[in-house]
């Protein structure tokens, strides 16, 4: 008997190893096979780390001859992982001494590790609340929007591709379970041209805690006071109706299988897999197709406070897609380790400028230029032990 038990342990171990290998392989291929685009040369070349530009403020504090060498660690959100790993590898090509390892452990974990100072910078799909900021070892935090994500409603209706129209009221009624049939008069009224079937609406939500949940429930809270009061927004919520599937692929797979289902996935995922998605009525009253441009427009149309902690769901602007959000990089405004602080700032600078050129190829929406200017100021204001990182600020 005991021999047998041991053998099962071995089998189980072997299986675990196999899973790890497969997952690693998948991750490697998914970040290695990204587009061949090159950085956009038209962006301002300020404190980028290339030492050839002798006139940059950075160069005045750093001898040109030394090869900079530093390992930075970062952790956080899974949603921007593909973009960040592209950034990291491209940045490393330009600055061979700088190695950044980004661990996509989730936004919650990212905030925690950042607050505990076990990583050089963090990343999160949701902003740090005042309470969380107070817990960040008492130091001021800059939360810098890095790119934009959006959530689309995808459905499985025989004979109907993309372009089903939905408005906030109907979406609320569906997620509360009050509209249960596709041929409900409310949906029909919005889509007089479509031949809507007499099918039950099976709502599919994401069961794993995720930024996608956060964005979608934020949107529902913005459009419905009832939702805000009864359910609220978060990475996981108590859904009034529906079934839960794990991950974008789980939701999409379920929607693909189940006629009459309605789910929500990341824009990137919907575009890559050519899913049918709904056009959503925005604040201005227009039905907007989700796209990188309409998402960027939502960010441009929104009022962004100085600390960048802005929600852009249900944003103003005639062409704004209403279910979108920033994802943030988290850094300390003052970092006593001057060498690290400089490298982090350089990377951030590169990310909001050259880095944005990689967004669309990887299915992220780039930051609007108006916002990038504000972020420049924030990066230039970073300090180390009270001293500005880039002396004299912008040339």
């Amino acid at each position, binding site marked *: 008997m005991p021999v047998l038990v041991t053998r099962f342990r071995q089998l189980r171990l072997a299986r675990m190893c196999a899973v790890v290998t497969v997952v690693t392989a998948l991750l490697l291929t998914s970040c290695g096979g990204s587009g061949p685009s090159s950085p956009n040369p038209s962006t301002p070349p300020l404190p980028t780390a290339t030492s050839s530009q002798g006139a940059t403020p950075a160069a005045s504090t750093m001898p040109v001859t030394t090869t900079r060498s530093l390992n930075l660690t970062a952790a956080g959100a899974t949603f921007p992982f593909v973009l960040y790993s592209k950034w990291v590898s491209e940045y490393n090509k330009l600055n061979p001494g700088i190695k950044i390892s980004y661990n996509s452990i989730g936004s919650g974990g990212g905030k925690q590790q950042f607050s505990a100072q076990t990583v050089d910078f963090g990343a999160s799909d949701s902003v740090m609340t005042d309470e969380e900021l107070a817990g960040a070892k008492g130091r001021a935090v800059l939360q810098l929007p890095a790119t934009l994500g959006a959530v689309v409603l995808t459905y499985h209706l025989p004979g109907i591709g993309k372009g089903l129209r939905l408005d906030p009221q109907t979406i609320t009624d569906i997620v509360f379970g009050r509209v249960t049939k596709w041929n409900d008069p409310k949906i029909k009224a919005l889509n007089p041209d479509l031949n809507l079937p007499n099918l039950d609406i099976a709502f599919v939500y994401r069961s794993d805690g995720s930024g996608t949940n956060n964005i979608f429930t934020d949107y529902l809270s913005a459009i419905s006071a009832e939702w805000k009061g009864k359910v609220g927004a978060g990475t*996981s919520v108590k859904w009034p109706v529906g079934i839960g599937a794990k991950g974008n692929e789980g939701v999409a797979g379920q929607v693909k299988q189940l006629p009459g289902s309605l789910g929500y996935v990341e824009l990137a995922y919907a575009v890559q897999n050519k899913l049918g998605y709904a056009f959503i009525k925005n604040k201005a009253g227009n039905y907007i197709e989700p796209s990188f441009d309409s998402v960027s427009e939502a960010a441009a149309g929104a009022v962004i406070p100085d600390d960048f902690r802005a929600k852009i769901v249900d944003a103003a602007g005639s062409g704004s897609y209403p279910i979108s959000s920033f994802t943030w990089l988290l850094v300390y405004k003052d970092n006593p380790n001057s060498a690290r602080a400089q490298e982090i700032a350089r990377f951030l600078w590169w990310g909001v400028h050259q880095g944005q050129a990689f967004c669309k190829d990887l299915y992220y929406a780039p930051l609007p230029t108006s916002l990038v200017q504000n972020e420049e100021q924030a990066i230039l204001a970073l300090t180390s032990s009270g001293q500005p990182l880039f002396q004299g600020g912008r040339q």
Partner: protein
Amino acid sequence: MRLTAPETEPASTRARRHSLGRGNITDQAFKGLTLLVALSVLALAGLLVFELTKGSMLSIRTFGFGFLSSQHWDPVHQEFGVLPLVFGTLVTSLIAVILAVPISIGIAIFLTEVCPLPLRRPISFLVDLLAAIPSIVYGLWGLVVLVPWIRVTMGPSVQKPLGWFPLFGGPIYGIGVLAAGLILAIMIVPIISAVSREVISSVPQAQKEGMLALGATRWETVWKVVLPFVRTGLVGAVILGLGRALGETMAVTMVIGNRHEIVASLFSPSATMASTIANEFTEATYKLYISSLIEVALVLMILTLMVNILARTLVWRFTAKVKGERTL
């Protein structure tokens, strides 16, 4: 009934025992080292319980026993109750065991008592192989093959005559309690059958031959001699399978539907403890949330521990019995 001869011990055995017993300094060191390694396992288990308890203190202080009895799992409003998860875990595992046990024991009996010798090894190998398939593969298969089958074929045909009964009522999404139970059943068949096979093959040949000599058929031999002889061992095998079913995460998460609800229908979505931890831990955004998930892990561990202790006790009792009967 054989007679043992305890007084005649081979000289080689005696020599070996001596060298182990006293030994020199290296032997002593070796003994110490192995003892240390053995104790480290205990220490590790203790540490695990300690850490889990420590991690869940916040949740234990906040909710007390309410955590075990509450049905609400609402991260937004900071309410956490484990009851629907315990329910989902136990029900899916129960379905799995009910389905897997007859099949597994059937396989074991076939392999030990009926199967022609040349086929025995290849078939055993195939059954063992099932245990080595990663659970995510089972999950994918469940999602792509089993779930549509339940939704389109099996579900409606069961619901048509029996839909009035709550157990088979409600809308059929395909994913749900039944899908999870079926996947788990397939996953634990190799474990239960392999352990049962081993247990059944330990039945003394003399007993079976005795029965056959009395004129019993093969069926009567299995039913009246083999199975009663190994009853407790089989229970141990089943509980090992149950232990696996209780803790299985990936495949269940993919097909159960992940709703924190106590449901009446086999077709309804539910959630298990393991699937909830897998789903929510990475993005648990505040301390009480994380603490509650750790307490879920603690509850799951205690449950699994209890099941395993039960299994080991039964297996020990069984092996003691076999030894006893052999020396009669």
